[in-house]
């Protein structure tokens, strides 16, 4: 479904992503892990068009989407969330999701301005879709609260709900459970599982190793912009390079 070939991103002298190859198959739930500064978020930004790669290719469903604008990549079916909790702060939960239902159904400027019957129908359709999404992610009890006054856990879930509104085939989640308490974590993980079970392919960046191991089928480990290993959580746990990357090289006393 997604194929990344030889992806390189330089920021001046710094090489954030150093020749990454990555394949994600339809229906997978893959974790992208690695220590701070490994280049995980940069990879997301390169896939979704927020950054242009120095070289390399991003191929989605057989089409080369390298360097396209973020909105056209979203239209092709790649959705994403952001690491910092990014929301429409002054819109309510429901309004945010309706606004995010921009692609389907698409309401043109003239029909919207003239308030035609077709635009009313589409408005009702998007309201219905937005309500369905709030229920699906468990935000229906807070749907009329402005995003900025939600508790942290709900904010992160709303971020996911906004991404879902664009009906992505591939969803990229950037540290979805950071800063949550235990209860919120299990709720968020349940939501991610439900999204995956409904047929959305997911690539998730996660800092919390235990969460990543329990959630994902396959893990890709990044360090200094390079893939150091990939495989099932079991394999990755045992891998020497991974242990080294996370814990550092052990110095033996002579």
């Amino acid at each position: 479904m997604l194929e990344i070939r030889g992806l390189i991103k330089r920021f001046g002298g710094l090489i954030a992503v150093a020749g990454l190859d990555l394949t994600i198959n339809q229906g997978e739930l893959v974790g992208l892990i690695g220590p701070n500064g490994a280049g995980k978020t940069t990879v997301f930004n390169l896939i979704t068009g927020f950054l242009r790669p120095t070289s390399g290719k991003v191929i989605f469903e057989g089409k080369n989407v390298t360097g396209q604008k973020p909105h056209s990549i979203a239209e092709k079916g790649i959705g994403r969330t952001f690491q910092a909790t990014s929301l429409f702060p002054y819109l309510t939960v429901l309004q945010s999701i309706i606004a995010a239902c921009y692609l389907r159904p698409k309401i043109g400027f003239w029909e919207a301005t003239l308030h035609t019957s077709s635009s009313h129908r589409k408005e009702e359709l998007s309201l219905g879709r937005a309500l369905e999404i709030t229920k699906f992610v468990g935000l229906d009890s807070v749907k009329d609260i402005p995003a900025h006054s939600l508790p942290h856990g709900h904010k992160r879930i709303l971020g996911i709900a906004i991404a879902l509104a664009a009906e992505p085939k591939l969803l990229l989640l950037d540290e979805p459970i950071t800063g949550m308490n235990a209860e919120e974590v299990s709720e968020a993980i349940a939501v991610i599982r439900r999204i995956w079970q409904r047929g959305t392919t997911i690539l998730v960046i996660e800092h919390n190793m235990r969460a990543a191991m329990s959630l994902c089928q396959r893990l890709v480990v990044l360090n200094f912009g390079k893939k150091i290993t990939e495989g099932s959580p079991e394999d990755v746990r045992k891998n020497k390079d991974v242990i080294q990357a996370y814990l550092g090289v052990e110095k033996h006393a002579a």
Partner: protein
Amino acid sequence: MKVRSRRKLVKPISWSALIVFLFLIPLFITSPYQLHILIMAGIAIILASSVRLVVTSGLLSLAHGGMMAVGAYTSALLVMKLGLSSWAALVLAGVAAGVIALLVGYPFVRIKGVYFALVTVFLAEVIRLIIEQWRSLTGGSMGIINIPRPDPIVIPGLLNMDFASKVDFYYFMLVLVLLILSILYAIERSRTSLTWFSIAQADFLAESVGVNTARFQVLAFTIGCFFAGMAGAFYSQYIAAITPGAFGFFWSVYIVIYMIVGGMKSFAGPIIGALILTFIPESARVLKEFQPYVFAGALMLIIFFLPEGVVSLPQRLKKLVRERFSHA
């Protein structure tokens, strides 16, 4: 159920009453000077409301004065040099300003935040300089005088408007303002507006769900400038003389101040702000002479005490009263 149906009735009735009242105003306000103030207030309302539309998309435009100049000159030149009907010129003036906004829009919206506001200042300056230097066409800094009145509207036995009196211009202004406000309100209540709000609050997030944010912002800028151009055309037909100096940087800033003082979060805000700030300087000669100070003072008072503008005053008072009584 009964309450709701009654409420449904009250709203349209009070709106129609207001509109009827506005149409009856020339019956009891007959002084040409007072009518002039009302007409100028109408122009200010169009400008402040249309700049707010641009603001809802996350762009602060300080080119509105310049766009007004584009409209004023386009209308005057089309009528005087090409002999076009003043009514066609009114619309084409808006189109001219809109086309300029559309052309510069795409490069401009790549510049975010306060830097966008800065480039719009330069845009307005460039427009003013072009008008000043293109003497053969625009009359340079001397401007254009003797701009003809709008073409008369005659419906035999019913209506005879030749625009020789301020009353005719008052009605022209009123119809134009009502028309433009209803278009702006239709947009305000549409999905387009929700998309603009979302872009203003987090453009990258809107982009990530498929919104072509640049296109939407250019759209807002173009529509806003279209109406500023129309306001300029009306101004030139009303005042009958224009100079490039009449649409300087101060106009652009005043328009934004109208909007902020009234309250930019609500549709009514710029309307109320434009009315208040047009009437206050006229209420006393001293205030008129120190207009910039009055505006600056009003702006500061509002930012400190009513950050959401004059429209939020009733709500604020209600809250204050409630707090007082709940403490007692």
